[in-house]
């Protein structure tokens, strides 16, 4: 059936009104009686041993209720089973500036802040590592004792015969690409509220309830159980509204555990909300990545082999690191047909906040390198950049050389669409000097086929309950984080049951109420939770159909559910659409909704007397089903099929997905050759999302991804100096504002995946990766320079332009601070540690005191 009544139509999200009126509650909006405020003391050193912590002065302060340190929760944890290397509060060592040392729970924020000042910590400062290539040489003072050379993990994969591929090639391109570190910067700072109950039987401390801004409530429940040594059944995690995640809330963040420890020690509810600066330290963003890439092609543009050596600067803890480094290699495949791949990936530890999963997890930086290099090769063999991509398409259904199964594949159409809409053929190469067009493609998984905790359990389970009121309640563990998860669930349930959206209520992401769902990450929710919803709804529908068919004296298969009614396919009246008599339809809705139960009862009696019917209202059918079955509930679950779970090689579990989304983009940019400033005028972005369940949301996700990719391409960068983040504020980090944001034309391509719910796949991440190389390629088209380092800041663009003309590089930091890295920007943000940070260099502008040196005398 392609004629849908609910899906495919642009609708407002089911929770939109709560967001636009301010009545929706995020974690920090919640308050409990007697609630305390928690504040965390962070390390001022990038690498140090903790010799002694003295909290006595702080504890004596009036209003301080509890102070907790590492020894209050000594169990290690981490999001990956192979990476249990974190402690919520440092046990013996701190490993980055901002690492968590102690937490104060006090009656208000001012008291807690004051108490932090009174905690005495004695550190033994250790040598620190900031550069991954330096860190890999380390012999002593390792960041983690069990990780020699500070190497978290390395993988070496060979698929096909790369040597033969290199030998067969006519053209080779080889270069080093660098993508600097970026972070999610979701608008809502992380927040957690934790409360213990007293057990009625024992009279002692009992169950724990945690409200948290998380994408993964069930993982949080699991890790809390591990650290607090409580059974999972004693822990309830509730996810209120979440103000954006992008991966930054897709694992357990220290404050989530610290709040629980503090609540336990304080014997009162504790809420901790990060400041924006703390959010930057919590990080888990996209690591700085060094990519040595070699791509080989034949004269006709066919790729013969790819070799990539990738080093990721992972920060101080494992986090999702092992998965990130595997994604970087695995998703070299499944976009184009590449017969031979050699991949060497190194995930390296450094003394900086841990990197983790961020939108387009692991694929983005490598995609930038690959698509830039492909563009370079196209120029070499004098082929249109759009054509070289068309010549390397997969022939699905197929399995790639590295074991990824591809079924639906909308990439060819995506390329055609953006080429057409952007006027590529007519305009490419004909724009005025310093204005250019660039094309690039990308893809992403619709959920990982293998969950991070190895088990055979379903990845998503959904329960549906329908009562005599005809209300459909869907219980799903999927986490709405702004992407439209709840709306998608409601749409699929309503479409399947043929009822109106208004009947469907969503109860989501509460570990006590909802069945397990592994969370909102790797773009898995529509595909997996959507399929589970579909199956649960079909189960319920079957029960309703059986009862309704009895009443109508027909076979259940003959019934159609639509527009809040159930009717026979070939009903004898057939006056109105779908065979449902129009006037009866209206009277039924009156009886059901307005006139209430009593009238409805008598109407039903009247109908009973009249004998079998051709149609029933949804409510009547539900009542019939409950009378017949005794109760009306359904359960559906989803686990990826074994064929989609990938190869058996080491690390082969990361990369496989039941379906991949595809994107092709054209960017139009201009470059100011005097200043090096790049302006993106427009991006045409075609995205194959399988089927667009809610087009307005799909377009929103495409635009949002492209926009975030543009941010990484042009302005966003975490700037470090001796392990200290120099720009921990939204303006200094340079998240683009409305005036810096280009027009994005989203183009939806529907390839109808055979296994997706109604054919749907992911739409929230796959588009991001193409934007960066599309802009890079457009810059090349505009001014003829090939940029190898992201972001393309005016400094880097200008340096490349001057190099092209044989001019000397301008050193913007000359005379300011000789120890500062070239990318140094003045730290204009918030206070750093209230003066507790390491000594600044005498020439550091932030250290200048008094008006003497400041030119303006301010």
């Amino acid at each position, binding site marked *: 059936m392609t004629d849908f009544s609910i899906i495919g139509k642009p609708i407002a*999200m089911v929770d939109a*009104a709560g967001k*636009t009126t*301010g009545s929706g509650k*995020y974690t920090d909006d919640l308050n409990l009686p007697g609630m305390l405020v928690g504040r965390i003391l962070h390390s001022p050193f990038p690498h140090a041993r903790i010799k002694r912590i003295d909290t006595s002065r702080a504890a004596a302060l009036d209003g301080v209720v509890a102070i907790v340190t590492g020894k209050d929760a000594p169990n290690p944890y981490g999001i990956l089973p192979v990476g249990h290397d974190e402690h919520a509060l440092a046990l013996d060592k701190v490993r980055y500036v901002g690492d968590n040392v102690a937490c104060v729970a006090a009656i208000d924020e001012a008291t807690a802040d004051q108490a932090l000042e009174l905690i005495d910590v004695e550190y033994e400062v250790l040598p620190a590592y900031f550069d991954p290539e330096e860190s890999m040489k380390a012999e002593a003072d390792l960041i983690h004792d069990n990780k020699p050379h500070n190497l978290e993990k390395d993988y070496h994969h060979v698929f096909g015969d790369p040597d033969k591929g290199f030998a067969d090639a006519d053209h080779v391109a080889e270069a080093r690409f660098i993508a600097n570190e970026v972070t999610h910067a*979701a608008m809502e700072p992380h927040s957690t509220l934790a409360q213990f109950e007293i057990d009625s039987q024992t009279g002692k401390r009992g169950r724990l309830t945690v409200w948290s801004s998380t994408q993964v409530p069930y993982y949080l429940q699991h890790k809390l159980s591990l650290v607090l040594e409580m059974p999972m059944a004693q822990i309830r995690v509730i996810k209120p509204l979440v*103000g954006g995640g992008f991966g930054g809330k897709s694992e357990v963040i220290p404050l989530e555990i610290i709040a629980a420890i503090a609540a336990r020690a304080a014997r009162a509810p504790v809420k901790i909300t990060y400041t924006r600066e703390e959010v930057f330290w919590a990080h888990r963003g996209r690591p700085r990545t060094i990519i040595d890439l070699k791509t080989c092609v034949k004269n006709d543009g066919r790729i013969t082999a790819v070799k990539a050596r990738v080093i990721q600067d992972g920060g101080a803890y494992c986090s999702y690191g092992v998965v990130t480094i595997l994604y970087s290699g695995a998703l070299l495949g499944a976009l184009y047909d590449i017969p031979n791949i050699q991949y060497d990936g190194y995930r390296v530890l450094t003394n900086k906040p841990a990197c983790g999963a961020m939108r387009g997890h692991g694929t983005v930086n490598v995609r930038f390198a690959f698509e830039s290099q492909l563009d370079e090769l196209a120029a070499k063999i004098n082929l249109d950049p759009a054509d070289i991509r068309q010549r390397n398409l997969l022939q699905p259904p197929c399995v790639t050389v590295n074991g990824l199964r591809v079924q639906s594949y909308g990439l060819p159409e995506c390329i055609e669409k953006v080429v057409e809409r952007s006027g590529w053929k007519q305009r490419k190469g004909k724009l005025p000097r310093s204005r250019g067009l660039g094309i690039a493609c990308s893809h992403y998984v619709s959920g990982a086929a293998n969950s991070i905790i190895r088990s055979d359990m379903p990845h998503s389970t959904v329960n549906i309950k329908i009562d005599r009121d005809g209300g459909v309640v869907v219980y799903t563990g999927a986490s709405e984080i702004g992407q439209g998860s709840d709306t998608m669930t409601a749409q699929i349930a309503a479409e399947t049951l043929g009822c109106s959206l208004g009947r469907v209520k969503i109860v989501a992401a509460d570990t006590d109420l909802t069945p397990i769902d592994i969370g909102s990450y790797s773009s898995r929710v529509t595909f997996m939770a959507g399929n589970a919803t579909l199956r649960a709804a079909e189960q319920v529908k079957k029960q309703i159909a059986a009862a309704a068919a009895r009443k109508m004296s027909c076979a259940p298969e003959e019934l159609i559910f639509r527009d809040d009614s159930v009717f026979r396919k070939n009903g004898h009246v057939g006056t109105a659409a779908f065979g449902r008599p129009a006037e009866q339809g209206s009277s039924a809705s009156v009886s059901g909704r307005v006139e209430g139960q009593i009238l409805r009862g008598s109407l039903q009696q009247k109908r009973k007397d009249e004998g079998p019917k051709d149609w029933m209202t949804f409510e009547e059918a539900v009542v019939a089903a409950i009378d017949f079955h005794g109760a009306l509930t359904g359960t559906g679950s989803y686990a990826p099929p074994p064929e989609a779970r990938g190869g058996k090689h080491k690390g082969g579990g990361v990369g496989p997905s039941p379906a991949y989304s595809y994107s092709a983009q054209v960017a139009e940019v201009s470059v100011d050759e005097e200043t090096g400033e790049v302006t993106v005028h427009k991006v045409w972005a075609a995205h194959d999302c399988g089927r667009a369940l809610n087009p*307005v949301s799909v377009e*929103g996700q495409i635009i949002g991804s492209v926009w975030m990719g543009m941010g990484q391409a042009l302005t966003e960068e975490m700037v470090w100096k001796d392990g200290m983040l120099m720009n921990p504020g939204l303006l200094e980090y340079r998240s683009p504002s*409305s005036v810096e944001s280009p027009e994005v034309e989203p183009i939806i391509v529907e390839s109808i995946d055979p296994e997706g719910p109604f054919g749907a796949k992911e739409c929230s991440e796959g588009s991001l990766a193409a934007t960066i190389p599309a802009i890079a390629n457009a810059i090349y088209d505009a001014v003829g320079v090939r940029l190898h380092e992201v972001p393309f800041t005016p400094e880097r663009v200008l340096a490349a332009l001057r190099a092209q003309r044989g001019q000397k590089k301008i050193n913007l930091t000359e005379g300011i601070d000789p120890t500062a890295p070239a990318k140094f920007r003045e730290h204009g943000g918030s206070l750093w540690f209230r003066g507790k940070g390491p000594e600044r260099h005498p020439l550091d502008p932030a250290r200048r005191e008094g008006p003497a040196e400041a030119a303006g005398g301010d």
Partner: protein
Amino acid sequence: MKKELIELRVNSRSYELAVEPSKLLLDALRQDLQLTGSKRGCDDSSCGACTVQVDGVPMLSCTMLAASCERQEITTIEGVSGHGSLAAIQKAYGDWGGAQCGFCTPGFIMTVTHLLAENPRPTEEDIRGALSGNLCRCTGYSQMYQAIKAAIEAEQKGMAEAR
């Protein structure tokens, strides 16, 4: 710090509050009045999520002292919808995808309602300029422009019908 008694007028209602002289307007709204629609998204008045209107002018409530707002008319997001229904701009933000995670939305709506009061027919450039003090991380802003245009149309249609 010793508290002082102040009188705040918020969304056309008067409240008597005891607050420290250092208390920020945002904290007074969120903590003392439980008006949690205004959000805190940053430490340094860079994000605009806390925007409220003071005497009709959009202001960052995270950088104003509550005590300095006495005798001024404060409007928060909770004061935008009237008669228990969505204002045109709120409806349009929902319909056109102007809000995804929704955390920045109250701040944007306070900015936009001021823009539309000042300039009922803004060009896209006017809109971009007006919104540049508010940050959003989800939408890339595009769908907000559509929402704002739709809200203007809806308002005009509503006014035409009323005539």
